[in-house]
């Protein structure tokens, strides 16, 4: 390809500029990734880090373990429900912020804040809100007559799952707001004018004009959020720790528990690798759609 000397020099300079990236990638991403797969073929006692080869034994055990399937199911339940809420809330709030309202930029900042705040902060605040004796949520629910007696938000099922889904939706829906709002601003007004002329009401306009225009951005947002929700660790670990027992334990939590609670890094790696295999489906879909939009953008 690069035949003339200048082109070759440029290619070399390009390689030099990307070299630090490649070095770091190899050391802290590629090597650990390969290593994770390799580790999953051993049983490794965490405190001593002594290992023993078991081949695919870890995977065979996982396939036969109820806990693994339960955690996988939990991961899907959490992802599907919290993602759905995020999308619905995100679109609704984006439509709202797209209208004229007083102090709109302040409103926008307040809406975005949960997304940027540390998960630790979000969890502390919500655990205080959920507090069974002095929490404001129980108090409000009691005086408004919604509840007869205080609710155990995080310590019993199905409350615990509902609570993490709600907090997850609160924390991450601003991402959808940002993406949808940006797209809304670029929908040409003529489309709405034309729909109005045809006698479409606000609801019909939403389904016939807005939603089709949002379709592309929504596909990307749903895939990205599905990937990120699927691998969520902090929020669930800090809110319920997977409890009660393992009712809200998702796969990332199970990895952590196997590695540092039950002290088997090999098995933990096997769970992590299996989880990645499931995620690979979403990841490939996302890479495809990103590749497609990139090619279209280049055109």
């Amino acid at each position, binding site marked *: 390809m690069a035949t003339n000397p200048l082109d070759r020099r440029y*290619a070399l300079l390009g*390689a030099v*500029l990307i070299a630090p990236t490649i070095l770091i990638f190899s050391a802290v991403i590629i090597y650990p990734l390969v*290593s*994770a797969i390799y580790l999953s073929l051993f049983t490794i006692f965490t405190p001593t880090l002594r290992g023993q080869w078991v081949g695919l034994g870890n995977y065979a055990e996982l396939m036969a373990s109820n806990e693994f399937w339960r955690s996988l199911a939990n991961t899907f339940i959490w992802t599907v429900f919290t993602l759905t809420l995020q999308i619905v809330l995100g679109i609704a709030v984006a439509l*709202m912020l797209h209208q004229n309202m007083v102090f709109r930029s302040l409103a926008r900042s307040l809406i975005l804040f949960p997304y940027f*705040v540390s998960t630790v902060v979000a969890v502390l605040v919500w655990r205080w809100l959920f507090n069974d004796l002095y929490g404001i949520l129980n108090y409000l629910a009691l005086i408004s007559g919604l509840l007869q007696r205080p609710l155990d938000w995080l310590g019993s099922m199905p409350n615990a799952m509902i609570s993490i889904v709600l907090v997850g939706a609160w924390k991450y829906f601003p991402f959808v707001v940002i993406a949808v709002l940006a797209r809304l601003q670029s929908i040409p007004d003529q489309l709405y004018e034309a729909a109005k002329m045809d006698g479409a009401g606000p609801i019909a306009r939403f389904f016939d004009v807005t939603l089709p225009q949002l379709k592309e951005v929504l596909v990307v947002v749903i895939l990205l959020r599905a990937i990120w929700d699927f*691998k969520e660790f902090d929020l669930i670990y800090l809110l319920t720790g997977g409890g009660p027992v393992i009712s809200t334990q998702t796969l990332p939590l199970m990895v952590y528990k196997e590695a540092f609670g039950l002290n088997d890094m090999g098995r933990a790696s096997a769970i992590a690798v299996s989880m990645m295999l499931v995620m690979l489906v979403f*990841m490939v879909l996302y890479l495809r759609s990103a590749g497609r939009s990139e090619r279209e953008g280049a055109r």
Partner: protein
Amino acid sequence: MKMVRRVAFNLFAWSVVGLVAFPLIWMVITSVKPQFELFRIPPTFLPETVTFEHYWTLIYDTPFLKYMRNSLLIAFGTTLVVIVVATLGAHSLVRFRYPGRERLAQLVLFTYLLPSVVLVLPLYLLMVWVGIANSLFSLVVAYTTFALPYALWLLRSFMQGIPDDLEAAALVDGATRMEAFIDVILPQALPGIISTSLFTFILAWNEYLFALVLVNTDEARPLTTGVMNMLISSFNIEWSLLMAASVMMSLPLVIIFAFLSSYLTRGFGAGGVKG
């Protein structure tokens, strides 16, 4: 009629905003209430007495400031390393042609989606093996695993927005590629670099999992795991103290939101918001 609808819509919209922001408002209110007021039934909405005692306790009687120093060092360190490496890398990916470039860009996107929980165990073993476990440096290294792909991807899309002609013009004027990069591309990319730095800083500031696994001394513990430790290790939970800690932990964000929000918006435009 129109007026009534305006007012009604504004009332509705602001109650939604208030609802979303309520947990954070409640955090601030709780942090300035004296401890005994928390256990009042019915609860007081506005504090009867405003006190900053929890903030003083946090600063003088807990390792909070040490955690904060650690968090600042880690977040600034990560941002610095990642931004320098990613700016060079993104420039290479956008303006140079060499075999494997497209594959590399795809690899970046793939690593951007990779779950930390897969990398954390091998990284832990690696840190123990190299002998840097339990240090601030080990966290900076670990944070590059998610911050570098992210920054590369974001900067790449910023730099794609800079027209090719600018660099070409500089080259015609006799500048070398590196001179053109420094004199022409960098100033153009500066807003993008600032906004990527802010996002990277926030990511590093908020990280929890790596800090949990890789560090178990107060000497290197950042705020996220440090503050959670204060919750777990205390005999009875002092909520107002924890809320004060949460407020302090969110200060950098408030500063960024207040003074640099235009750079955040720019970052959203480039499609770079990670969760």
